[in-house]
């Protein structure tokens, strides 16, 4: 009967809103245009046979249907506003509402990127103040806000390194990347024409120094290091690592995705990093929006400044800001205009809301939360690395696999407890990884509930594994068939599909 009930309930759109194309019918309108105050035109006359026949299957719905469609679909998402979202490395922290308000102020939101600089001083000031703050936070000398996301920042940073080395006379061939690195690191190195050489980690989850010594030579442009790395471990040998690289003329790139573990406590520029990116959508609270937009500013040391993408913001003695384009050594543009300005506004608002004291406390709370979870779940789940944790902790499913339960199953079951899962199976150096990053935004109450849930799932894995394997049980949809999705990809709706849809 339970099922029977559910079947009926699920007939309501709120549980089963169709595709917008299935709600479309000719003549419904969700718009109205203003009266045209210039002479009407006929597109056939103006465009000839370049005029378009029709718009095919584009939908036709009314405004209330738009509102309901996107409201109903939204209720199928989990979000930070619902609760803990401990995706490791993704830093799903609170997105402050004031950020959303200031970024929508008319003078900022409606500013055209090519409007005269004289009437863009407000926007340029926002970018300048943010730039200065980020430089200070990273302990670097210069910055570009142009990159649109972290990976884009990596690309920019490695381009800077290559341009610098080329100027030294030899761009070199390889980039060293630890096996714990995020996939964007090797992918980036390849885009800049470098071969990727894997660097082993040691038992502590840090760089194996002997390996680095052995692999570092004049063919190596540098090392891409995430610090703290994806195990949540701060590499204490960082000074030595930088030395080794610099001694052989290489450069140290830091993937700053985990900068939220350091802000206000440690500055990469102080421990030998030459260039790094930041993820404003992680450390600086800009919303991730279901997959972006991001923003990946790149900060660097003086030696790399000449190569920054154009334009660069400069200030005249009398405090006027302007965009400098004439920079002969620049690597060029990585994006049109000035980057994701709307995210710059939000990140600055976040920094202002925190101040130096708030930023430090935020970092401390993030690290405290991760260590609290580690303490409470150690033993319940296998902890492959006993090295101190910073902002996140990585467990493995070793203890559960004996009952045939994998990290992915635990994750799905966690959904039934009302939590978003942690990051599954990453980093790759931990087999069956559970990568948990609570961020500073979780209260003790929420953490305790999460811990209780994780313990309960571990217990279920012992006592009733099938309930875990079958999870989630409480969602609108059960586990989705990703295999057949990839085998026979359906990447768009087509009219005939209409019948297929219930």
């Amino acid at each position: 009967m339970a099922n029977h009930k559910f079947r009926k309930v699920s007939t309501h759109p709120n549980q089963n809103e169709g595709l917008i194309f299935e709600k479309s019918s000719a003549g419904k309108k969700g718009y109205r245009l203003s009266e045209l105050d210039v002479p009407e035109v006929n597109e056939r006359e103006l465009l000839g046979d370049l005029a378009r026949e029709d718009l095919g299957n584009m939908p036709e719905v009314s405004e209330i249907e738009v509102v309901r469609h996107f409201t109903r679909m939204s209720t199928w998402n989990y979000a930070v506003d619902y609760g803990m979202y401990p995706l490791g490395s993704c830093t799903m922290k609170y997105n402050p509402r004031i950020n959303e308000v200031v970024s929508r102020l008319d003078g900022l939101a409606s500013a055209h990127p090519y409007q005269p600089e004289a009437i863009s001083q407000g926007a340029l000031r926002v970018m300048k103040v943010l730039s200065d703050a980020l430089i200070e936070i990273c302990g670097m000398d210069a910055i570009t806000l142009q990159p649109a996301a972290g990976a884009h920042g990596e690309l920019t940073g490695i381009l800077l390194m290559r341009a610098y080395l080329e100027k030294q006379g030899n761009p070199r061939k390889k980039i060293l990347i630890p096996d714990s690195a995020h996939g964007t690191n090797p992918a980036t190195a390849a885009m800049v024409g470098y071969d990727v050489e894997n660097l082993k980690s040691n038992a502590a989850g840090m760089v194996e120094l002997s390996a680095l010594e052995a692999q570092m030579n004049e063919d190596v442009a540098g090392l891409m290091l995430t610090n703290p790395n994806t195990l949540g471990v701060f590499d204490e040998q960082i000074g030595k690592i930088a030395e080794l690289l610099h001694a052989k003329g290489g450069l140290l790139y830091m993937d700053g995705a985990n900068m939220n573990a350091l802000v206000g406590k440690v500055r990469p520029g102080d421990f030998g990093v030459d260039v790094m990116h930041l993820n404003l959508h992680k450390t600086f609270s800009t919303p991730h929006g279901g997959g972006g937009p991001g923003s990946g500013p790149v900060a660097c040391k003086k030696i790399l400044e000449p190569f920054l993408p154009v334009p660069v913001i400069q200030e005249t003695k009398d405090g006027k800001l302007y965009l400098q384009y004439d920079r002969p050594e620049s690597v060029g543009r990585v994006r049109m205009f000035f980057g994701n300005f709307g995210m710059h506004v939000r990140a600055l608002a976040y920094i202002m809301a925190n101040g130096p004291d708030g930023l430090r406390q935020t970092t401390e709370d993030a690290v405290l939360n991760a260590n609290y979870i580690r303490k409470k779940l150690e033993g319940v789940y296998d902890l492959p690395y006993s090295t101190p944790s910073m902002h996140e902790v990585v467990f493995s499913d070793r203890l559960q696999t004996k009952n045939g339960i994998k990290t992915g199953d635990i994750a799905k079951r966690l959904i039934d407890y009302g939590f978003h899962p942690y990051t599954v199976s990453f980093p790759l150096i931990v087999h069956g990884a559970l990568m948990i990053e609570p961020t500073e935004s979780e209260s003790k109450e929420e953490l305790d509930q999460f811990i209780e849930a994780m313990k309960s799932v571990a217990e279920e894995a012992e006592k009733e594994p099938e309930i875990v394997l079958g999870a989630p049980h409480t969602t609108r949809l059960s586990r989705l068939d990703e295999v057949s999705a990839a085998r026979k990809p359906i990447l768009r709706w087509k009219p005939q599909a209409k019948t297929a849809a219930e």
Partner: protein
Amino acid sequence: MRYLPKSPADREQMLQEVGVRSMDELFSHIPPEYRLKRDLAVPRQMSENEILDWFRARSGENAAGYGIMLGAGAYNHYRPVVIDSMISRGEWFTAYTPYQAEIAQGTLQSIFEFQTMICELTGMEVANASMYDGSTGAAEAVMMAMRLTGRTTAVLARSVHPEYREVVRTYARYQGLPLTEAGFGDNGRVDMKALEAEVTDETACVLIQSPNFFGTIEDVAAVAELAHSKGALLVVSIAEALSLGIVRPPAEADIVSLEAQSFGIPLSYGGPYAGVLATKEKFVRQIPGRLVGETRDKNGTRGYVLTLSTREQHIRREKATSNICTNQALIALMANIFMTTYGREGLRDLARQNLAKAAYARRQFGTRAKVLFDGAPRFNEFVIQTKDDPKTVEQRLEFRKIIGGFGLKKFYPELGNAAVWCCTEMNSKQQIDAVTEVL
């Protein structure tokens, strides 16, 4: 700090349970010489009220309430208020990439709808979830063409947005041979002769923009034929997405790179915007970025998942189709809501209004200045050559609170005092007439 949900007592208790005496002990394993012993020199902690005032002041220093007749890659269109009303729901803007499909169906289904609409509008068979923007999208499209053809150079039409071309060059710099360019003719379109000369059997693709940087609609079919005849692909970049409401889709292209900013995305001083790549089904495994596909759950109910991820960096690492990870999902959602709100009829009606406004302005301006590139059809942009330097015109317009066209001198010295102007549904006849007087 008001964002932190902990009382001093909570912190005390948690530190105890973790087994440390102080916060600093949590950082004690970091070599002391690297630990910061001072406050960061950043703005002091401010109240929400103070933050709002500060940004209001900055907003006031920017042009607000100006009439904008400037396009050049960023277009001033009306944004239906439902867009912000919807995306402001935490379920949309405080979610991450939909890795866990069962609790991300909202995001996934909306992306599937987005992919579908992009296909409908561009005439392509598949589209991805989004790219950073139109300029990086164009670059990724060129790289994709190189992978598909195994060739390592490309020809860029000079009528492609100059900044797009700069980005393509940056991306392509270490991919192989240097890129070449082909100029434009008197009608503003790519010069077919020049193009023919540039395209060789090492050319992976030809990149054009349509409507191009001068607002001229390219003859896509002709360029496609030329490119294909040399075994090269055609990449068409579209910066003014609204043109698709009334201009024939570039169906002959192999890859279309679209900048969706015109679809309800605020100008926001240049970003965030949203790019998207569309192509033929047979090329799908070389497309960069995320793809959402339809599938079924255990009960056979329709659902959506991220798919074909073996193309992506987190699986393929250095062999991936791109390093892109985070894209522009929320911005693509804005475009999705915009396309849904206007829909089949609305996009066409809106595009027609743009056509009418630009046609009127061109006629009016033409009475005072020289209209360039008049030999081919255009959408909502056109090029005007004035006696005076556009900078001078700019100052005159300042008084009327109007932002005028984009001076071409910087990128096209040969065009002298020419500027590319744009008129959309947002420009009133009154504004247009006012500008006419000033020219």
